[in-house]
């Protein structure tokens, strides 16, 4: 486009926009003075609403690409191994990075850890790295049963820490139903852990229920020393980590001390305050100062200025009475605004609670006579209750009596059976139901959760590990299967598949000759490869496909004659071949297809013969398509013929199975395409193409007649009719037209984009047939209708194919116009066709180039002024055909007169 041309467009557009809508058309007709292309362009611009969507799609696509590029750019993408730890899941995400679940993967033993990985690219990266290392140093110095232990750590590829993985619930979440005493005892242990940290000169600074998990055994574990600070002391010499730095703010103000929120220096007293707040929550079910609808800022103001309500006023139920008095006072003393008026240490707080439990006077209360007296009475009452509690808990603790062990064993089996039944029987029965995906995921997740728990109870049970592995694979399938009914969550699927892979590997190391494990491993690896393909990580995908190939080999070497293994391995090799084909590794693809072929030819027993033959037929078709792609139609034909023969054999065995019928139809279609000159590089035998397509069409008619719900056959018939229409259009136009009609008449508003495209192609064929019959007006109408159909296709559809087909439709339209004695219009149409940029990626296909040469020749013949340019374009196109080793027709010659200018 020249600037002058653009200025004209812009002027016309702006002027037309300024006038009343109904006046625009006439004005444009006058003003454009015969330049129809210009007028059409501006009209289209003014009616932008009609064609809206394209630009929006592009923008949306841009955003989605940006997002996926950015997401794939996270440092953890692709990295699944830190030291000898293999990432198996995500536990959570925090401001500093992500916490993964990981297992030891050096073959020695399996231990789950929480793997904290520093997020790179944080603002102030150096500072973040220093903090991360500090957490590691701090954790390394702490060794206490109630503090999550540092297990391992490293720097590559980014700093990471492996911390003992704690399975439990935040302190206080399960408090309801627990006695007051057991809650207090639990809290005492927390105090002990905090006191221990303080004694190592470490202040936690972020104590809150979420950081204190209680395991199933009732053990509290202190987590997350991520913003911990160090008290001054000779053992810590790094000046960058003194306690006076207060830049690290906790996420929630509810448990933070007033001095912390005000950014003042903090020490032991700050942790004492937080312990008080945690205790408050443990006793009342809510943190101090909590009110409905309070903002974080209001909360901060409350923490720094007002005293919280007494716990006994906030709690509900009979516990209120027990809180009134001592516990109210203990909690409120810990929560004093002034740091130096709180308990001097976690130990002091613990000591007072202990005194309360023993009925002794607490320091949090002034000693008055009545107070001391009431203490004495309650001490004895408590004594009785405490003894009862111990007896009960002993009974529970020693409850592994023989009878109970047997019950436990039975229960174990029951749960396991139920989980597996859910996982496979139930899921299999609903998997094809529309809209079942989300419930399937829920069911499978639940089953997997149960199996996971059982597996933790029985760590050595390899069969159970296998069941769990299968559960993860199934979960991954549901999450990642991107068919119509998928949730389309690649990342989740990847995690599930990887977990499955890892579990199957465990089974494999325990039982190296377990065929199911080897087979499942291969198939999971392939699925991971497929996910990576969808995510564009072709290298990673390639690695998994290679591993999967090795696993198939291993499975086959263990069970060379197992029909199920062979059957699955064939599918595997086909997928590997398809992958290699897609990355232009033709040799590798051939190799994989050949492997599949070899296995598909292994003799099997009679019952499995039909399946075997089907596999062989599919493999032969792949080889046929492979050679079609290599422009070797002769070889392709041989494979397709052999494949068709196999399919026909099967039809004899099971004539009534619709799938078999469809399979034969596919065989005919593949073979037909080898002769079809409208397809890429064929043997060019329209009669042979017709016979094969015709048979495919007949089979689909039969299938559709037998089952009115068989939409696949119906749609397939349209494809066949369209192909017949195209093939016969030039050689036997009168015979072609009924097929063209069949293909166009079958589509409706609600048809899929593919079917609508077939209809458009059939109309292009129809236009060519009418041209051959010397009916230019009908040809023009058909070509115009085809263009309309193509233009109406949704923008998200395959734009490249549509572009090529638009050019084909324009070409047909040009020919129709010329035949109808409208040479000027024909010239403009062909020019427009040549203006469509087909080779945006520099890789024009045979059909693109063929079309350009064809159109250039036609327009050169009727446009003397542009003649040299068109011929040169044709010569260029022929040159690129030669460069790609395509057969080239008679060379186009540019007359010498063209170069004289």
């Amino acid at each position, binding site marked *: *486009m020249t*600037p002058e*041309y*653009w*200025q004209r*467009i*812009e002027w016309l*557009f702006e002027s037309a926009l300024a006038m009343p809508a109904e006046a625009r058309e006439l004005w444009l007709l006058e003003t454009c003075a015969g330049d129809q*292309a210009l007028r059409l*362009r501006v009209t*289209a*611009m003014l009616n*932008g609403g009609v*064609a809206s969507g*394209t*630009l929006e*799609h*592009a923008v949306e*696509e*841009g*955003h989605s*690409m*940006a*997002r996926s*590029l950015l*997401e794939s*750019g*996270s*440092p953890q993408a692709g990295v699944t191994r830190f030291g000898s730890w293999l990432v198996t899941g995500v536990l959570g995400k925090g*401001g500093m990075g992500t916490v993964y679940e990981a297992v030891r993967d050096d073959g020695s033993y399996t231990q789950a850890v929480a793997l904290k990985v520093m997020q*790179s*690219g*944080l603002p102030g990266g150096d500072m973040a790295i220093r903090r991360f290392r500090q957490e590691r140093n701090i954790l390394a110095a702490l060794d206490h049963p109630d503090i999550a232990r540092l297990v391992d750590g490293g720097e590559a590829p980014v700093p990471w820490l492996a911390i003992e993985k704690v399975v439990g619930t935040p302190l206080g979440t399960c408090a309801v139903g627990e006695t007051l005493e057991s809650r207090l005892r639990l809290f005492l242990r927390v105090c002990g852990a905090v006191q221990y940290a303080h004694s190592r000169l470490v202040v936690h600074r972020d104590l809150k229920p979420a950081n204190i998990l209680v395991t199933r055994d009732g053990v509290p574990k202190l987590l997350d020393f991520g913003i911990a600070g160090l008290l001054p002391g000779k053992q810590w010499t790094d000046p960058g980590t003194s306690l006076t730095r207060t830049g690290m703010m906790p996420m929630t103000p509810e448990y933070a001390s007033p001095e912390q929120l005000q950014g003042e220096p903090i020490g032991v007293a700050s942790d004492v305050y937080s312990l008080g707040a945690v205790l408050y929550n443990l006793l009342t079910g809510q943190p101090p100062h909590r009110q409905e609808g309070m903002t974080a800022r209001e909360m901060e103001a409350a923490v720094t200025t007002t005293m919280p309500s007494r716990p006994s006023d906030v709690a509900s139920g009979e516990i209120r009475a027990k809180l009134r008095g001592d516990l109210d006072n203990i909690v409120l003393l810990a929560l004093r605004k002034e740091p130096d008026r709180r308990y001097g240490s976690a130990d002091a707080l613990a000591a007072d609670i202990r005194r309360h439990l023993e009925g002794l006077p607490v320091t949090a209360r002034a000693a008055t006579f009545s107070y001391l007296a009431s203490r004495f009475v309650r001490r004895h009452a408590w004594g009785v209750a405490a003894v009862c509690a111990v007896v009960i808990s002993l009974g529970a603790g020693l409850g592994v009596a023989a009878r109970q062990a047997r019950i436990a064993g039975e229960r174990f089996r029951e749960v396991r059976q139920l989980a597996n039944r859910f996982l496979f029987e139930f899921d299999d029965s609903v998997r094809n139901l529309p809209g079942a995906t989300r419930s399937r995921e829920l069911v499978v997740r639940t089953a997997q959760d149960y199996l996971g728990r059982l597996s933790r109870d029985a760590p050595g049970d390899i069969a159970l590990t296998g069941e769990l592995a299968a559960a993860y694979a199934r979960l991954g399938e549901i999450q990642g*299967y*991107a*068919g*119509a009914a998928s949730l389309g969550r690649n990342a989740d699927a990847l995690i599930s598949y990887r977990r499955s892979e890892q579990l199957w590997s465990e089974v494999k190391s325990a039982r190296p000759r377990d065929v199911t494990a080897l087979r499942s491993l291969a198939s999971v690896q392939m699925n991971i490869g*497929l996910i990576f*393909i*969808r995510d*564009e990580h*072709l290298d990673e995908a390639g690695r998994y496909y290679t591993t999967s190939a090795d696993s198939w080999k291993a499975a086959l070497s263990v069970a060379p004659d197992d029909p199920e293994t062979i059957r699955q391995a064939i599918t595997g090799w086909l997928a590997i071949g*398809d992958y290699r*084909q*897609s*990355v232009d590794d033709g040799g590798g693809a051939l190799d994989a297809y050949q492997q599949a072929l070899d296995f598909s030819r292994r003799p099997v027993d009679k019952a499995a013969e039909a399946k075997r033959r089907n596999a062989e037929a599919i493999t032969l078709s792949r080889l046929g*398509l492979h050679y079609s*792609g290599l422009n070797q139609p002769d070889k392709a034909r041989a494979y397709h013929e052999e494949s068709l023969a196999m399919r026909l054999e099967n039809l004899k065995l099971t004539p009534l199975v619709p799938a078999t019928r469809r399979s034969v139809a596919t065989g005919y279609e593949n073979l037909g395409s080898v002769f079809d000159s409208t397809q890429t590089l064929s043997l060019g035998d329209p009669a042979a193409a017709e016979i094969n397509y015709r048979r495919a069409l007949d089979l689909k008619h039969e299938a559709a007649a037998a089952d009115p719900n068989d939409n696949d056959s119906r749609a397939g018939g349209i494809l066949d009719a369209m192909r017949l229409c195209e093939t016969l259009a030039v050689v036997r136009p009168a015979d072609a037209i009924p097929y063209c009609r069949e293909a166009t008449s079958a589509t409706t508003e609600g048809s899929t984009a593919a079917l609508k495209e077939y209809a458009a192609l059939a109309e292009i064929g129809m236009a060519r047939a009418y041209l051959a019959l010397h009916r230019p007006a009908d040809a023009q109408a058909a070509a115009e209708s085809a263009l309309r159909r193509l*233009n109406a296709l949704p*923008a998200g559809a395959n734009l*490249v194919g549509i572009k090529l087909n*638009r050019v084909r439709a*324009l070409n047909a339209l040009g020919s129709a116009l010329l035949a109808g004695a409208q040479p000027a219009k024909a010239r403009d149409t062909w020019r*427009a066709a*040549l*203006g469509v*940029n087909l080779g945006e*990626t520099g*890789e024009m296909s045979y059909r693109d180039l063929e079309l350009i040469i064809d159109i250039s020749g036609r327009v050169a013949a009727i446009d003397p002024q*542009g003649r040299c340019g068109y011929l040169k374009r044709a010569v260029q196109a022929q040159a690129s055909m030669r460069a790609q080793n395509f057969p080239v027709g008679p060379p186009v010659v540019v007359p010498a007169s063209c170069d004289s200018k």
Partner: protein
Amino acid sequence: MADELQITQLLGKWASGERSAMDSMAPVLYAELRRIAAAKLRAERAGHTLDPTALVNEAFVRLLSTQGVSWQSRGHFFAFASSLMRRILVDYGRRRRAVKRRISRLVPDATGWTGYRSGENLVALDEALTELEHGDARKAQVIEMRYFGGMSGEDIAAALGVGTATVTRDLRVAEAWLRSFMTSSHGVASV
């Protein structure tokens, strides 16, 4: 991380019209950019989706300020960022499209391709934009800043030193033309 001095020099070259400087800068800057933007993207709250291209732009500002790169004018910088984003996204879109085409051509019924976002529309936009550049470079740049830089009309106006009304008009006519060009096959003959 690349040598800071080198980046400053390259940006200077680019600003003074040496477009090939982008080739040397793109991979380095983009790697940095992506790390920053990815961090922001992960920090996004649910239900509050940021426009990733705007996000990238923001990350870019941050990147340049941490690198200590000085700019004579904001305009140069935004033009550069938008242009770089366009290139990165379109290249990526091309790659995706190529992969999809290769696979779907081979295995038409391959499962796992529904919902796959290939870059066809994006590439079409890029082509249309290239065509527009021949006719009116500023309008193409306005579109680039809007769609690839995620910039607001006011920001574009400030960056280009024109009024917001001009930007609005530019956007209106350029969008209308792009829409019609991308949808119709009546491209101008370029023989």
